[in-house]
């Protein structure tokens, strides 16, 4: 699904990512773990195709990024809730659904499905500026799912939401994986890391280690410990 080779990203003189290399297969939930400022969001943006790699290649779903080809198959949830505050939840879903090329009947059906999925059916016709933070996160997830993508890129999906909602989110991610969706999720919360199939550890713009949560815990004692040991090395 994702193949990143020898990839570096530089903005002016600032090197954000250096020689990143990894692959992600179908139907995996992969956690991208690292402290804030380590380059997680930049990596996600390259995977969507929002920037030109300075060096190396980023291949997603068989095509080199940046390109518009795969955009229809990628679902993206940004770190900030990128929602139109004046529009209703349904209005936001309709707009993004149409941009992904959904046609009338399918669009209508998909809107109802994802609203059900994130439990926003009763608030679907309220404008977003009346929504709580958690509701906005849920709607952002619904938008990421509107076009039934085969790859989900989620940038800090559970930041600032309550534990119950976090649990629901992860339950939903696992449900999606069962239906064959590949998920890459960034986080810096360790209990979330443990729910992933595989982890990519990123620090100072470099991929420092990778493996299943169990492997990493075995080698370093804990995931936090992994970062501390790598920092010393």
């Amino acid at each position: 699904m994702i193949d990143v080779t020898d990839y570096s990203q530089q903005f002016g003189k600032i090197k954000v990512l250096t020689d990143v290399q990894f692959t992600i297969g179908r139907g995996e939930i992969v956690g991208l773990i690292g402290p804030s400022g380590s380059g997680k969001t930049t990596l996600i943006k390259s995977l969507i195709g929002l920037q030109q790699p300075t060096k190396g290649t980023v291949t997603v779903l068989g095509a080199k990024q940046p390109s518009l080809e795969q955009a229809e198959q990628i679902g993206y949830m940004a770190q900030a809730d990128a929602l139109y505050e004046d529009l209703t939840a349904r209005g936001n879903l309709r707009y993004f659904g149409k941009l992904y090329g959904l046609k009338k009947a399918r669009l209508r059906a998909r809107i109802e499905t994802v609203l059900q999925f994130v439990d926003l059916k009763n608030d679907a016709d309220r404008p977003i500026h009346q929504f709580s933070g958690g509701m906005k996160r849920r709607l952002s997830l619904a938008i990421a799912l509107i076009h039934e993508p085969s790859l989900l890129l989620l940038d800090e999906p559970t930041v600032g939401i309550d534990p119950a909602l976090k649990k629901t989110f992860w339950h939903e991610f696992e449900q999606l994986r069962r239906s064959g969706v590949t998920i890459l999720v960034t986080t810096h919360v360790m209990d979330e890391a443990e729910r992933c199939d595989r982890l990519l550890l990123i620090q100072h713009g470099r991929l420092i280690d990778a493996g299943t949560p169990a492997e990493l815990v075995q080698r370093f004692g804990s995931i936090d410990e992994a970062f501390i040991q790598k920092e010393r090395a």
Partner: protein
Amino acid sequence: MQTLTVAERVISQIFRDKRTIAMMFLAPLFVLFLLSTILGSSSDDVTIGTVDVPSAFADTLASKTETASFKTEAEGMDALNDQRIEALITYQNGQPEILIEGGDVSKNAAALQVIQETLITIQGQQATATNTKLSETVKQLQQRLTALTNQTFDAPSPVVPPSAKPDIQFLYGSPDAELFDQIAPALMGFFIFLFVFIIAGVSFLRERSSGTLERTLATPLKRSSIVFGYFVGFFLFVTIQTILIQLFIVNVLDVTQEGNYFLLLFVNLLTASVALSLGLLLSSFSRTEFQLIQFIPLAIVPQIFFSGLFDLTDAPTWVEVINRLMPLTYAADALQNIMIRGAGFTDIWMDLIVLTGFMTLFVLLNMRALKKQRPV
């Protein structure tokens, strides 16, 4: 298709914001109404004070404007200082001396004009009187000569001065056209430019800062669809705005409208396109709404000066250069020519080409700015 999706969203966003709608549609009408009232309420009536002037002069002056006669010059000076009169006329050795108050340009001009008219009338009267006297004297002399010499002399008959009232006609407009008729078309262009610039610029800036622009760019839409979606969305509002302003200034404010309404709408849509693309472009150079608003004194306000409100015939070259660089110069010129002179497409095509050029330039720069957000 995607362009229409973006347009639909822009439209429903603005329609949900009632205050923006009200500002866009009612504010121009209110300001135009206010300006029309203010320009219409200035009065050219002046009061002129006189001290001991010949009665013929006083009578003629009184037939043209309000006068006040004073016994002494000191009294007259007091009145002038208190601005009860705009000018004071005294006679020194049979010659009029005129003192103008000088604080109110238009009233001073009116006072001067009245006084000059009076002087001309008086001179005319004097000339006629002299003429009459002269021809009487000549007649008497002729009679004397005839009596003395039995010969007749032909003297030239007195020349009658030509009528002082030429026939004045207006190629365009009418004698009762006011300043407001001249600036109303330009102001319409200005309002459309201003409102589209602000609303589009702020909306686009919000898209940047809230992340919706990036989120939209993560979908498979073309970059140009965003810009053109904004165009189409705003065209709806500019059309409504044009219709409202036209109905209002023509029917309520009684402004001359000689031209084709569709051509007017076309010019307005083109003006809006320039404002829109400029607003989107400048929004990419701003981090906050506040920074975008700071562009207004620099990019928008000077355009009022160049929109045909003032005559720039004698302006220095650098002002002329700025004038030529301002999109509103061309919009105002086209709108004025259509409304006042009934100009057609063939008369204003140069303006339209320049406006299209501005729009194309801004759109291309916009695409470049968006390329930073997504390289493909």
